């Protein structure tokens, strides 16, 4: 589904954000991507989504190159940034209609999907309200609803649990599991190791732009908790 092959990304000024990183996410995977602040998680995610250009390596989504065929790739995925800045000038429903139009979702399908996810995330009564009055969590929920509108094959989420209330976080975990059970995949970054340990079938750990562990959760973790493994790997050079 998602293949990141020897990705390297250097920012202007010479800072190497990601170095020779390779990850493969397959259909059905719920893939957790963890690392310290500034390790290169968001850079990797933004490169995979086609927001950030990268100088070497290749990223493909369902066989399509992000570099060569970005629009096709973007049709297959949905992306949720860590801090979703949405169009404040629009109401919630206007934003969802905008995203539906971009993905050419029919009126009937968008009504059904928006209605379902808005109900699940308790946003139904806020959709006619301007986004400018939303809290961070509400913006996060709205961005989540927009991510499911076109039924993507791959969800790429950057810190999706930040700002969500406990109920919404639980709902999201349930939605994520169901989504992957249908053969789709999710690649997400998180700092909440308990969540990653509990719901992910695969995990990758990144440190200073380099992958230091990657594989099935049980293999990465071994007999220890994910927290212990993470601290051990990230503390030692």
């Amino acid at each position, binding site marked *: 589904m998602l293949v990141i092959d020897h990705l390297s990304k250097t920012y202007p000024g010479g800072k190497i954000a990601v170095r020779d990183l390779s990850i493969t996410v397959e259909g059905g995977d719920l893939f957790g991507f963890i690392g310290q602040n500034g390790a290169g998680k968001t850079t990797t995610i933004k490169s995979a989504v086609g927001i950030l250009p990268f100088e070497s390596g290749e990223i493909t989504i369902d066989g399509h190159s992000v570099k060569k065929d970005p629009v096709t790739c*973007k049709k297959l995925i949905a992306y949720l940034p860590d801090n979703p800045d949405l169009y404040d000038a629009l109401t919630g429903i206007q934003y969802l209609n905008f995203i539906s139009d971009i993905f050419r979702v029919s009126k009937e399908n968008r009504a059904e999907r928006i209605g379902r996810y808005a109900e699940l995330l308790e946003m139904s009564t806020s959709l006619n309200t301007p986004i400018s009055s939303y809290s961070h969590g509400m913006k996060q929920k709205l961005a989540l609803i927009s991510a499911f509108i076109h039924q993507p094959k791959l969800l790429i989420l950057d810190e999706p649990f930040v700002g969500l209330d406990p109920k919404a976080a639980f709902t999201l975990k349930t939605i994520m599991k169901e989504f992957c059970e249908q053969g789709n995949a999710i690649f997400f970054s998180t700092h909440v190791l308990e969540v990653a340990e509990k719901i992910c079938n695969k995990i990758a750990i990144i440190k200073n732009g380099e992958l230091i562990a990657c594989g099935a959760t049980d293999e990465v973790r071994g007999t220890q908790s994910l927290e212990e493994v993470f601290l051990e790997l990230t503390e030692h050079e």
Partner: protein
Amino acid sequence: MSNFIILVKNNCLVFWGSLKTRKKGRYAASGVLMVFLLLFVGFSMGSQSVITTMALVEEGIPQLSIFMSLMSALTIGILFGLMRAANAAGSKDAELLLSLPVGRVTAVCSKVITQYIFDAPLMIMIFAPTVIAYYVLAGASTGELVRGLILTLLLPLIPIALSYLLGAILAYLQEKFKMTSIITTGILMMLVVGYMFVNFKSSSILAGVTDGGNASALGMIEKFAPLSWLTHFVLDGSVLPVIFSLLMLIVPFYLGVWLYAYAFGRPKNGYRSNSKVVAYAQRSPRKALLDKEVKRYLACSIYVFNTAFSPLMLIVIAAVLTVIGPEQLISSMKLPIEAQAMISRDFTWVIIAAGFCLFPAMTSTTASSISLEGKQLWILKAHPVRTEDIFWSKYMLNILLLVPVSVLSSIFIGVRVQMSPLEVVGFAAVLALLGILVSMLGLIVNLFFPRFDWDSETAVVKQSMSVLMSMLAGFTAACIPFILYFTLLQKFGFLGFCAAAIVIYGGLTAGSYFFLKTAGRKLFEAL
């Protein structure tokens, strides 16, 4: 150092920091530009005041210099207040300040004083030189000088009061009504247009009265009640004008600051709807993008302010010319009769066309439309949208705003001055093409000079390099056919001018379109 001083210093540092960009050169350039502007404005205002006072001393009516200078200072002050009103209620860092061990009064006062520090220099530069020149050149008393200087320091309270009062009203409306951004923009537009009208009227009255003699000029001061109080505050210091002046300056200021303090730190409650009934409208991606651009445009008062000026002026010019006719226009220029006789019909039309081309060339929504994506740029970049469609939606907004008005205005004027149908079509085509060209040029310039790290839309819409460069590019492009006409093509008449302009604007538009499709696309993708 007291908390108050620390907060004021911090407010100034935050402002200075907002000018900073990652590039050191631009940071230094901003500083140099600001100092240069301050010196330039200060020098020109000061010298203008001295010249005016000298002239009025010779006429025997030096008192009028105080009156006129007050009018200029208030004009600038009121405009400042109006332009700032939309963002005046509350403060972005209010919660942070209130969480610190700093009193609420201290925090609010620091904000008000900072605003005073920003407003005061320009108003002082307008009024203080007149007061000093009046004292030196007209032999005024020390009392007049002292009262003049006191008034100089009190004048900046007016824009602060106005922005806070109007800001509180707009914040109230935003809480109570849907579509508040449009309401806010509408109210501010009406106020600014009303203000321009009053300003124009008072200037013409002033010009008429000064032509009428000294007694009439001095008598006229009494006709402008609030201004006459302030003038008498300086000139004679009599009790009633002093009381009225202080009331006029201090009461609105106190009320405005009180309202500002009341809103400081309180959550801004936007309009909320609990309705579960939602409308699902299906459009093509292009239409959805354009719709988003329109909503974004209407939601930002300062954006509308800055860019609706051109179409508005086109309508005004068209209306004025339709009513008075070109003959009246030429006679109002007060040219010698021989010169008027030499002006041909076609020459007049080209002059009219120049007037019509000037405004569309000066402003464009596209000059800041990429920058205005700001932190939301990820939405366009992460979704399957073709860059061409993004560009299309952006320049189409400006085209929709400009071209229909331009075409209709040109048709009205063409018919009024009895152009032939072919000439009317040519004139309309010139204006339409220029509208399209300026829209594309603005977008290209913004791709070269994007700015995403803004806190206030004003920084992008009014103060960005892109807007400045776009204005320059639009103006230069618009001038080319006129230069050609006046140097080489006069013998071909108005139709010759139209043909040249169509070829030039058309060629530049085609070039711009091609640039956007190729290099422009790459520039956008690299953002």
